[in-house]
């Protein structure tokens, strides 16, 4: 195979390393490519000359905020530092790789990660969201795992704003189109509406994959002589400077003023690519496979080489193109989807070829791994890149951006909800409850989730509307995993440190109520511009809060993603740290639903209720108020509660469990009743007495560490004893009723299930059909 021709031929007009030496002063568009003056100087420093235009292209995308984490790096370190050896026990691969890998026992492991595709999803919602799913799935695949499920975390603008429907339809269609076509069940997610996301919706996507321990792969090129092969879709002009540049810029408040090339996704190509990669892994013909996401070939080549501590020689003319007119710089930056880069030992090439041919996947050999700390890229006979790979991939700039306590913060925190009028009587309480369940944020999300395939694969044990998604990993033993993600932007805005802890606590609780044991954490940190010191303060607080909370709960962060520049004009979104918790369950047959189905079971409220209405759905949706401090959370108690739920589920004592979060006890009771259309009789008197609160707080406070469980009468004594032994506050507040068709809340109202359902289920279709 002849990749390189040393014979001197006619120059092609591209900017070569020779030119860079002979024309040192050539003007270069470093500013347009998003580099800062000192960054450009640093590149010249590293190379000892000016970069070629191709090198400049590579450095600019790889040093962008999105790819280099230059503003967040110093804070993300805590996730690796604030850990105990105990926390690392199940961690097979930690932060820094494509995705973290967690041992779940029986020789099996899972890998999971959540990533943002916010800006592309505003510009072209359908393709933006679709390719967001595609990208995260390739991350999971590159670890050697078979992707087994996805989830999506969405934040939209005000439901009745004229632009919201466009984004909602496009995003949901895009996720549905891509995820369904890949054959990955969608097992959960979040949907939140708030005008703060109007010009900058959030589209985060999570994927999880499973594998045997021995199938774990790390993407690196460490064996000189191995071939570097690009395969999958052809390289086109789509998304040039897309993800990386987009994700590193602030939007204009007027909407999509710039319309850069977006990427177009082909889920069919990706499905074929998944099967093809898994067969390649299985046959052992690849040393590693790197996915191509943001920064395309620039990223794949430099990261593979840098990870392996070796170098690489690449012939860029060998890249298969969709459009022959692409320049080398464009080829290096293209973010065309559904491509992968494999490192293949020379003697396995034949086998590699026969597998990719079987799947009708196109490929081309780009070059080989060399025992030298250089990445050389040729365009025909001319050298256009000659750099140390680490300087591109890993040793980018690191900033300690200025941090400032926000000017508005004190006023915001002092503006407590205490001054809001409480409901005066039973009628008003009932009205507020019915009003809350029918707000877009509390209402039924099945308008969205019904567009997602939750059955494919036949291993979905829980999905919407239950608190976590749960998926069986081993068909033999029933071993499975539960996954939940949460973020409350309002809480994080009021107090970013606490907000991040609360997000973790809620996701942790959502996993625990299913009977699974929380084991690992991922996150996607959605924030405004890092160049705004107040945003940077939020980021600093939130990362500290999350790292501290993980330490308190004893579960490690395995990876994540940072998305900055989420703002329109000068107005940043609420800080939105999406936190995902993964739990393990030895047999998914043991899982607990979120609602009650049997008649005559006792209903217990676990945990204590405080008067905590700041930042609540009640304050925001009934009184249009946001201020004060978010609820407090004691993570030691949270852990105790999770242990109790696990113990009780092992003993088969609980029939249902639903965590309390937005909307408090009132909403939780209605949701648990709606789950199987089985009513309940509830009394709040004992809660009022024990916790010293009023009815409004009893119904709507968002105090943490609370769960609503139903228990069969025969297990009553055992269950109460278990709570007492562990010191978890436990109060019987009602009984399930399968015949009345009512949710009766004593002294407040008898609500018809049909009425509740009508209010709850018609909201989304009313807005978007």
């Amino acid at each position: 195979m002849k990749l390189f021709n040393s014979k001197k031929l006619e120059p092609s007009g591209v900017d070569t390393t020779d030119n860079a030496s002979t024309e040192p002063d050539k003007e270069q568009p470093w500013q347009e490519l998003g580099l800062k003056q000192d960054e450009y100087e640093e590149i010249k420093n590293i190379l000892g000359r000016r970069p070629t235009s191709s090198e400049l292209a590579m450095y600019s995308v790889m040093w962008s905020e999105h790819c280099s984490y230059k503003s967040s790096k110093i804070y993300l370190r805590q996730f690796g530092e604030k850990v105990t050896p105990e926390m690392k026990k199940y961690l097979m691969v930690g932060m820094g790789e494509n995705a973290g890998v967690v041992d779940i026992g029986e020789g099996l492991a899972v890998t999971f990660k959540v990533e943002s595709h916010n800006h592309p999803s505003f510009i072209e919602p359908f393709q933006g969201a679709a390719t967001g799913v595609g990208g995260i799935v390739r991350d999971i695949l590159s670890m050697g795992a078979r992707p087994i499920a996805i989830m999506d975390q969405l934040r939209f603008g005000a439901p009745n704003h004229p632009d919201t429907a466009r984004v909602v339809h496009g995003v949901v269609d895009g996720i549905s189109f891509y995820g369904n076509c890949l054959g990955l069940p969608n097992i959960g997610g979040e949907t939140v509406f708030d005008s703060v996301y109007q010009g900058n919706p959030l589209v985060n996507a999570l994927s999880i994959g499973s594998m045997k321990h021995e199938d774990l792969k790390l993407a690196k090129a460490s064996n000189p002589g191995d071939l570097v092969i690009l395969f999958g879709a052809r390289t086109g002009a789509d998304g040039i400077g897309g993800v990386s540049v987009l994700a590193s810029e602030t939007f204009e408040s007027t909407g999509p003023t710039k319309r850069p090339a977006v990427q177009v996704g082909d889920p069919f190509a990706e499905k074929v690519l998944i099967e093809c990669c898994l067969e390649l892994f299985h046959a052992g013909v690849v040393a590693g496979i790197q996915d191509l996401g943001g920064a395309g070939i620039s990223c794949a080549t430099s990261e593979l080489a840098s990870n392996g501590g070796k170098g690489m020689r690449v012939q860029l003319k060998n890249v298969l193109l969709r459009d022959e007119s692409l320049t080398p710089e464009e080829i290096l930056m293209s973010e065309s989807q559904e491509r992968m880069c494999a490192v293949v030992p020379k003697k396995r090439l034949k086998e590699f070829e026969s597998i990719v041919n079987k799947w009708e996947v196109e490929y081309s050999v780009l070059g080989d791994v060399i025992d030298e700390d250089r990445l050389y890229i040729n365009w025909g006979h001319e050298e256009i890149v000659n750099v140390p790979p680490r300087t591109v991939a890993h040793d980018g700039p690191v900033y300690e951006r200025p941090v400032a306590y926000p000017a508005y913060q004190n006023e915001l925190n002092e503006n407590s909800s205490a001054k809001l009028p409480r409901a005066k009587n039973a009628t008003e309480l009932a009205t507020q409850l019915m009003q809350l369940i029918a707000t877009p944020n509390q209402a039924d999300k099945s308008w969205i989730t019904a567009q997602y395939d939750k059955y494919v694969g036949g291993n979905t044990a829980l999905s919407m509307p239950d608190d976590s998604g749960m998926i069986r990993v081993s068909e033999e033993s029933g071993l499975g995993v539960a996954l939940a993600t949460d973020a409350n932007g309002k809480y994080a805005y009021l107090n970013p440190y606490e907000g991040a802890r609360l997000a973790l606590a809620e996701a942790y609780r959502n996993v625990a109520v299913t009977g699974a044991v929380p084991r690992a954490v991922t996150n996607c940190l959605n924030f405004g511009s890092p160049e705004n010191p107040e945003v940077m303060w939020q980021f600093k607080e939130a990362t500290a809060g999350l790292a501290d909370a993980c330490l308190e709960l004893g579960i490690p962060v395995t990876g994540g993603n940072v998305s900055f520049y989420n703002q329109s004009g000068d107005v940043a979104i609420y800080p939105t740290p999406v936190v995902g918790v993964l739990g393990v369950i030895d047999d998914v047959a043991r899982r607990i639903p979120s609602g009650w189905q049997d008649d005559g079971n006792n209903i217990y409220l676990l945990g204590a209720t405080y008067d905590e209405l700041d930042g609540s759905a009640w304050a925001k949706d009934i009184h249009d108020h946001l201020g004060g401090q978010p609820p407090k959370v004691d993570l030691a108690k949270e852990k105790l509660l999770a242990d109790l739920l696990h113990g009780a589920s092992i003993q088969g004592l609980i029939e249902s469990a639903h965590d309390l979060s937005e909307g408090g006890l009132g909403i939780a009771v209605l949701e648990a009743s709606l789950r199987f259309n089985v009513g309940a009789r509830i009394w709040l008197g004992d809660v009022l007495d024990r916790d010293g609160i009023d009815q409004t707080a009893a119904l709507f406070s968002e105090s943490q560490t609370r769960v609503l469980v139903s228990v069969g009468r025969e297990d009553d004594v055992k269950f109460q004893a278990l709570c007492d032994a562990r010191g978890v506050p436990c109060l019987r507040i009602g009984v399930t009723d399968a015949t009345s068709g009512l949710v009766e809340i004593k002294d407040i109202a008898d609500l018809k299930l049909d009425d509740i359902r009508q209010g709850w289920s018609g909201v989304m279709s009313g807005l978007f059909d």
Partner: protein
Amino acid sequence: MKIGVITYPGTLDDRDAQRAIRLAGGTPVPLWHDDDDLKKVDAVVLPGGFSYGDYLRCGAIAAKAPATKEVIRLAAKGLPVLGICNGFQVLVESHLLPGGLIRNEKQHFICRDQKLRVENNETAWTSLFEKDQEILIPLKNGEGGYIATDDTLKMLEQENRIAFRYVENNPNGSMNDIAGITNERGNVVGLMPHPEHAVEAGFGPDTPTAMRSGIDGLLFFESVLKMVVNS
């Protein structure tokens, strides 16, 4: 008892169909679209998914695959064939079944637990059902609206070739609430909903008594196994 399951590029529910066959007591045999050898199976399932990305029209490209051509040949001789969702679309594009399937009335992909009525329990795949039995199995499709000319519809009705009808809710705008049909001989059946997703308690649709415990889909596979044994 060997039942083949064809995998096209983009097929998704092939492993679920294989599981269903196993749970019903049969032996699933994976078949590859590009291979015209059907390995002497006693029946074939064309599973759900997005064969060839469902580009152009759902099932149109898969209808030209070597394995499909062999299915067409053997179906004429009586080989039992079940097309589920995308498999149904392939059967229609192959002209093994009449009519066509178009985009759902509401334009969206829809995934829900769907009630059906068994209208014809004399096909290879429905013999263990009672006539008019109501069953609950998942439905998930983007292009599941069944359409046919008036003449075809009349013929299907008259010849009792409507195998399943949607009950309570027509999810995709299908004519005459048609969820599935059969050929004249009763060996080829196609339907949009997914019986293979209601075969194992814990992973099927919710029922009035327990979460995800519906297994009404199992009878499809047991029916064909019984028929093969008897013949």
